[in-house]
């Protein structure tokens, strides 16, 4: 599906998905700016921004193999973990001043264990993320965010005041608002932007200095809002759901068959921006805790919240006029195995076309993917 967008901002975003240290991040580093890696979308990156650093979402982009990581983990561990850890072991993440984890899943939490033993990054922290979404968990996470803030002070000597935290929350909410505006345009009958391009926009948002990103994103949204051009050459409108997917090449295969991805429930998608952090809350740390635990669309790992996740998907299907849902997961991921099964049952009951696909983090597996997508579109009568 050929792009209709000629935006300079979009080019910059696309470039950012192809490398770890993109030009904007390099400029930031050259000016002495510091960068903290975040291994999950549940890391409260607003604290990092408030400290004056750039939060950078960890990826395995550019990895050519997993030889070094394979000495640490096993073949039943997911390929994202193996590739991103391999890059770390090879020194490709030496531009980071710190890395922060949450106990996202059985695979990612072990990267923390290997990283602290083998890689010389100055600041490492794992935040204990609850697996439920109730009030006691909000309170637990509030304390975790407070401790994280204190540890930043202890290590970097930077006190993240409430004032700075509110400023960062507002800045990140602005990102979310702009990203939602972009998604709003995808509701059009002929969306002005493809799924491939949108993913690039979303990934870039986790890899660039925030103010610069927001400025570029506003330019892009304005440009697209004013344009009447759109993609009409698709066979079906697709919603994509799953975990970590940062490679536009995967969506490119889906769209090459006429399945235009118009919305998602992904880690680099709606789950990180569909809700704002409540700026009316009295305490910024409580606001962060409530957002991450209770308010934002949750990850599959959050127990007791599956009905809300399922409702979120169904709402998206209606809002974006979706014809069918593709669920992707990395092989060996238990969280998304279970979630795919439950979502499939829910969508079957609702009569919504649905397909589950397994994938590898680096190799798109274009041939097989193409065949599966073709069959899915045909099954839908498209």
């Amino acid at each position, binding site marked *: 599906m050929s792009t209709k967008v000629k935006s300079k901002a979009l080019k910059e975003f696309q470039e950012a998905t192809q490398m770890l240290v993109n030009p904007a991040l390099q400029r930031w580093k050259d000016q002495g700016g510091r960068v903290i890696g975040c291994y999950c979308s549940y890391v409260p990156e607003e604290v990092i921004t408030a400290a004056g650093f750039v939060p950078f979402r960890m990826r395995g982009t550019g990895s050519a193999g997993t030889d070094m990581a394979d*000495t*640490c*983990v*096993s*073949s*039943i*561990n997911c390929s994202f*973990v193996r590739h991103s850890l391999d890059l770390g072991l090879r020194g490709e993440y030496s531009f980071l001043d710190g890395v922060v984890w949450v*106990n996202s*899943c*059985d*695979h990612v*939490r*072990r990267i*923390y*264990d*290997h990283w602290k*033993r083998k890689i010389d990054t100055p600041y490492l922290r*794992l935040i*204990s*993320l*609850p*697996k*439920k979404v109730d009030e*006691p*968990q909000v309170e*637990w996470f509030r*304390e975790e965010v407070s401790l994280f803030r204190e540890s930043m002070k202890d290590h970097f000597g930077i006190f993240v005041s409430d004032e700075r935290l509110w400023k960062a929350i507002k800045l990140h909410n602005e990102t979310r608002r702009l990203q939602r505006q972009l998604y709003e345009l995808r509701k059009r009958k002929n969306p002005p932007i493809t799924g491939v391009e949108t993913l690039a926009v979303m990934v870039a948002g986790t890899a660039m200095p925030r103010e610069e990103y927001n400025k570029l994103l506003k330019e892009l949204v304005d440009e697209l809002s004013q344009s009447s051009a759109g993609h009409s050459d698709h066979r079906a409108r697709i919603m994509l759901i799953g975990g970590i997917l940062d490679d536009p090449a995967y969506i490119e295969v889906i769209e090459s068959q006429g399945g235009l991805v118009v919305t998602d429930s992904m880690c680099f998608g709606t789950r990180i921006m569909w809700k704002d952090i409540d700026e009316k809350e009295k305490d910024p740390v409580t606001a962060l805790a409530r957002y991450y635990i209770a308010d934002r669309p949750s990850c*599959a*790992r959050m*127990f*007791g919240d*599956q*009905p809300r996740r399922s409702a979120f998907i169904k709402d998206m299907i209606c809002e974006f006029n979706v014809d069918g849902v593709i669920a992707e997961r990395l*092989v*060996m*991921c*238990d*969280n998304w*195995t*279970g*979630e*795919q*099964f*439950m979502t*499939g*049952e*829910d969508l079957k009951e609702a009569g919504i076309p649905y397909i589950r696909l397994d994938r590898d983090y680096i190799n798109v597996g274009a041939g097989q993917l193409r065949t599966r997508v073709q069959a899915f579109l045909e099954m839908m009568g498209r």
Partner: protein
Amino acid sequence: MTTKKLRQYKYDPDTFNRYRQERDYFNFLSGILATMPDSMSQLSKEITDITVERYDQIVRCAEEGKPFVAGYFCAAPEIYEAMGLPWYMIMATPFLAASAPYLTEDIDAAEAMGLGTDWCTACRLSLYYIEAGLTPKPWALIGLIHPCDAGNMLHQAVARNKKWRDVPIFASDPPYFEDQRGIDYYAGELRRMVAFLEEHTGAKLDLDKLREVCRETNKQYEILSEYTQLRRAHPCPHGWGVGGPQAFAATQVFQTGRPRGTKWLQQLYADAEERVKNKTGPVPKERIRYFWFDLLPFGWVFELMPWLEQEWGAVLVMEMFGLQPYTPIDLRNEETIFKGLAKRNLYDSPMIRQARGPADYFASDIARVVKDYDIDLVIWPGHMGHKDGSASTGIMREICQELKVPYIHIGLDLFDKRYTTPEECKDKLSKFFSAMGLG
């Protein structure tokens, strides 16, 4: 106990078919053990009989409309016991009855349901049993969202399952690190679990009864701790056939805080002590002392473990469920009891202890066991469901290198022998033993 205003429980005898089959299977095993007069077989027989009794108790509760719950060994069974709530594990088949003859057939049926094949077989089986109406539907379910992702997803899928959607479910949220703040938080979760059980079963928790149960468990763990010390002897008094797994079943599943369990542990200790005095082990000549760092391969245990003893003189000196780091519960008041339960269930309980938090526990347990038990070989079976453990394999290997003890990671399914067959395991182990000059 009042059952007013509680959900109406409807007994469906069909859902007990498999459960009764399992009970009958244990009865059959008990019959075989009855013909074997040696002390180890008699110890196993007593545990088997205790198991049968629990199965019978659950069936009776269902037939008579009395409350029973589903729970876990690591989700404070002391509390169910003190509340007088009979309980069973929805993972009972893979954990307890995995050598039953229908296991392979059930695994295939679970696969046919569309459950991912890289999802832990124990979890797939449990969900299949519910979907297929083969598991007793409890009044309330205590779920488990740690130590692994697979367990968390299993319980989410159970909660959403049409047949069980009316079964109330509660799961305690686990903090990641081991510290006082985590203990306090988890104690709060256990209190919320009590409120949940009271609401949905009508049973009430009496503090004096809980104290009594915990006092008895303190005795049980003390004896167990002394028993594990005896396993340091050369030769090790018991092998894979008796010890840790049965002691686990007694203390954490079927006889938590009950004098009969304490008595069984005393008999276990006495038998081991006698063997230590007589320098008797499970094989005529102990040639390899190994640490099996996981559950035993219950689905095909008889096809591997005896072979290790007979072919190689390899004796299982310690395994994950026999590793008992339990600290006694402080019985002074409600707060100390709940904090003690939080610590025991979260930081001491086998598999939960190692897999829930950072990999340091894998490393420190290996170091401790290798030194204390004079271990010649550490086996990480690498069960296909234990992703966090296999993601720690490099750390385990390095600690073994430091300790100068061989380490082998097999890669198998503890329940499905087709994943890596017993023959393949034997071949791999034989080659490794030869290469390392063991045995």
